[in-house]
């Protein structure tokens, strides 16, 4: 009588791979974060809490901490609200202009994260075109865009897409039968909204709030450009380290930034999402969406236009700025900025594409392996891979960046100043994106497909190459695109690890903004977005046609 464990033999190497992956995650994700902790409790005397004491006494911790939370909560509420309203009207009614919102969500994905801030300065800054030609002459008023209000505006406009996408998918998974049931019981649309739709979307509202709260806290580019005297943690920790060379002080701020983000993420992941009633996999029966009429139509489309137009005009500002001779003075068309800025930043452009071209495939391969382990093996420790990769979603880029310079500036892993520190950072930062993308695809594939192939005599390698890989191709392609775009537009983490020899294009854009070369900054943004769009479109060519 044979006694065997319950493990299928061909998956046994998965145990080894699982350990390998965990080791990599430990080195490139958790060790850097641990290094931050370590640097905050290492003093000249060895061990102590001097850095914390100092940070508290000097008020350099408390005030940015409060500001960051305040900003995060404000933006979280506002952006969630805007996204909710837009998602409601576009999901339940036919509305002109709904395509505008989809366009905006696309733009926000492919643009450098601080682009709207550049546009805001070009319009409403001290030398801004609207300030100079309109507000000052007519009202003798120059708006104060640097500080809390400017940040709230820009971050709300940048992050409402998160809430819009989340709530749209929630609304579309609410079976219209429920609403019809409510109407047939005599409830009005208003009553139905408050009694059915709103309660069902409550978990998604909380999720959206928490995710945007994290995004706002982690935001680096916008505050760096716009925060003025309103100091926030991400920028302060950066300035402490690169300006004052106070690594320990910066680390304390980074930890103060990390904790609320982790907390919010844990609440979202393990509390709020458990309360969700709506299964996102449900297939609701399609029902005709009613056309709004009269006043309601005017108000609803007004709302969509009112939200979309400012954002669109901000994007257009950047587009115009890239092609006019002197912003605010001479508005003749020119390609000069494009040509000049490209000449100046050619190296950085090439570096950016090279580095993303290396890091995105690494994210993809590791993500693919991790997804296979998670869904198709019985290896122990696989839950750790999942938890670990999920938690990195919540770690702000600034924190990772600081962690990397602390962890990899010494033997045995001396990477500082090399290409590889940037590659490693981006590869592991975007691994969870690739993992989720492949995993979602793999979840839709019936495992009996693989079992069928094996029962017909195909060995594991053949099943992997001929069955699994072609079937998850869409997930692989979108995972790769996502990781690549995120690498190209990343700023908060990589700003710490760039060096003289390896620079990145987003850092150059920030440099132009700091030296007030806004036309050049716009020009690069436009080129970058065009290149990304071309790239994304061309990956669509490889997308297999719908098979189901």
């Amino acid at each position, binding site marked *: 009588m044979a006694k065997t464990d319950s493990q299928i033999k061909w998956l046994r190497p998965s145990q080894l791979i699982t350990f390998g992956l965990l080791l990599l995650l430990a080195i490139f994700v958790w060790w850097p974060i641990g290094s931050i902790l370590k640097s905050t409790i290492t003093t000249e005397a060895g061990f102590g809490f001097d850095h914390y004491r100092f940070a508290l006494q000097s008020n350099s911790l408390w005030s940015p901490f409060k500001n960051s939370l305040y900003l995060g909560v404000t933006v979280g509420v506002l952006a969630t609200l805007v996204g909710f309203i837009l998602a409601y009207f576009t999901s339940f009614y036919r509305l002109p202009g709904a395509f505008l919102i989809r366009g905006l969500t696309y733009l926000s994905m492919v643009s450098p994260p601080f682009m709207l801030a550049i546009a805001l300065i070009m319009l409403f800054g001290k030398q801004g075109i609207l300030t100079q030609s309109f507000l000052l002459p007519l009202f003798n008023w120059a708006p104060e865009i640097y500080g809390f209000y400017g940040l709230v505006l820009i971050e709300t406009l940048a992050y409402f897409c998160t809430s819009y996408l989340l709530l749209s998918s929630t609304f579309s998974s609410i079976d219209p039968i429920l609403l019809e049931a409510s109407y047939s019981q005599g409830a009005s649309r208003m009553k139905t909204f408050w009694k059915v739709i709103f309660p069902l979307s409550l978990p998604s509202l909380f999720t959206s709030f928490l995710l945007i709260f994290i995004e706002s806290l982690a935001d680096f580019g916008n505050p760096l450009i716009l925060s003025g005297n309103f100091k926030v943690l991400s920028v302060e920790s950066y300035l402490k380290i690169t300006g004052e060379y106070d690594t320990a002080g910066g680390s304390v701020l980074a930890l103060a930034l990390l904790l609320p983000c982790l907390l919010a993420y844990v609440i979202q992941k393990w509390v709020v999402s458990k309360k969700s009633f709506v299964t996102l996999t449900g297939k609701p029966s399609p029902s005709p969406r009613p056309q709004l009429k009269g006043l309601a139509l005017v108000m609803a489309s007004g709302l969509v236009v009112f939200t979309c137009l400012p954002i669109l005009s901000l994007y257009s500002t950047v587009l115009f700025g890239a092609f006019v001779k002197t912003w605010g003075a001479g508005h003749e068309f020119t390609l000069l900025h494009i040509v000049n800025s490209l000449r100046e930043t050619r190296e950085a452009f090439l570096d950016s594409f090279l580095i993303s071209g290396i890091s995105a495939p690494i994210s993809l391969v590791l993500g693919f392996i991790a997804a296979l382990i998670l869904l198709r093996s019985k290896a122990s420790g696989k839950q750790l891979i999942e938890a670990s990769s999920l938690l990195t979603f919540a770690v702000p880029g600034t924190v990772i960046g600081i962690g990397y310079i602390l962890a990899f500036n010494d033997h045995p892993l001396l990477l500082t100043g090399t290409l590889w520190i940037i590659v490693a950072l981006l590869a592991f930062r975007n691994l969870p994106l690739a993992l989720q993308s492949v995993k979602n695809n793999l979840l839709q594939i019936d495992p009996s497909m693989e079992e069928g192939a094996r*029962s017909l005599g195909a060995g594991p390698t053949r099943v992997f190459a001929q069955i699994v890989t072609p079937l998850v191709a869409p997930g692989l392609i979108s995972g790769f695109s996502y990781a690549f775009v995120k690498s190209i537009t990343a700023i908060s983490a990589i700003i710490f690890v760039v060096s003289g020899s390896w620079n990145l294009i987003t850092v150059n854009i920030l440099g132009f903004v700091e030296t007030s070369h806004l036309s050049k900054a716009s020009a690069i943004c436009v080129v970058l977005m065009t290149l990304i769009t071309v790239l994304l479109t061309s990956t669509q060519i490889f997308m297999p046609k719908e*098979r189901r």
Partner: protein
Amino acid sequence: MIEIQNVTRDFKTDSASFRALSSINLKFQKGRFHTLLGPSGCGKTTLLRLIAGFETPTTGDILHNGRSILSLESHQRGFPMVFQSYALFPHMTVFENIAYGLRVRSTPSNDVRRHVEEIAEKLQLTEHLFKLPMQLSGGQQQRVALARSLILKPEVLLFDEPLSNLDSRLRVLLREEIRSLQIQNGFTAIYVTHDQEEAMSMSDHVVVMNHGCVMQTGSPEQIYFRPETEFVARFLGDVNILSPTWLSQISFSLKDLDFINSDPKNYSIAVRPEQIYLSTSENALKGRLLKKMFLGHRTRLTLSLHQQKLVADVPAQEATGLQTGMEIGFVFAPKETALVRPSQPDKTYDSILEPDL
């Protein structure tokens, strides 16, 4: 021949351990059609997957032609499997799906073409060979899955509820097709189903399972007419289970049963509705007619006698004059009844076997 020797399979969840199969001993004779029959969750699929090599037993052994196959991985066993969900490769044409197993075996492409065309012809798939699976109907998809397995001329073919996703007419059609293919090709079929009609109409040998145990094995006739337990009797169709107390009230003599070999006190008697006959004889039992339901070729009567409800299916003509409330004479033949052991009450199946359907 495939032999299952003392196989147990435990599934460990976070805290508890769940025994999906306990001490299974079975023999599947070569070239015959075997079904694993039982309610959902009883472990049929698990047993089939153990044979296929997708699971490993916690204890026990599985032999093929006398040799243990536990150390062989599923692709080395050569037991193709046909799934409920068809499991066709959506990115390959029907041709490539059917050819897959031959390609794996590096068959020359001329031979592949010849074999695929031959089997496609047999299963009426010729005109669909260059379509993608998604362009076929469910019945055609399952034919492709069959062709894909049959082309390998396997010694053993495994089926996991292959017809459950099809509508009932197609189900009947395909089960005849599968059965005749099995007879022609002579492979050993191990076929999982929860549908007793399917099991009885297709098989040479039925294994009835419940709660991870084998309840009874035998030919369809043995299983249907000579169930050993109440569970098997009820699972294979409507049946009247008559307790010893009630039997003594009607002075039914257990001595008339010629197959008693143990203490009859704990046993009940199973009588199928079609084994109760109307009778005008003096000695006939007299029951009150509670309900009458016309079923087409037969009429179902619900009778009551000494607080026991009985269901009888009688030829429709015999029932024409009967009206509810009447006293009716009926008989059943001891030789046609079966002695059954009571089994644990099984909630799932009680409901459909209430005598007053």
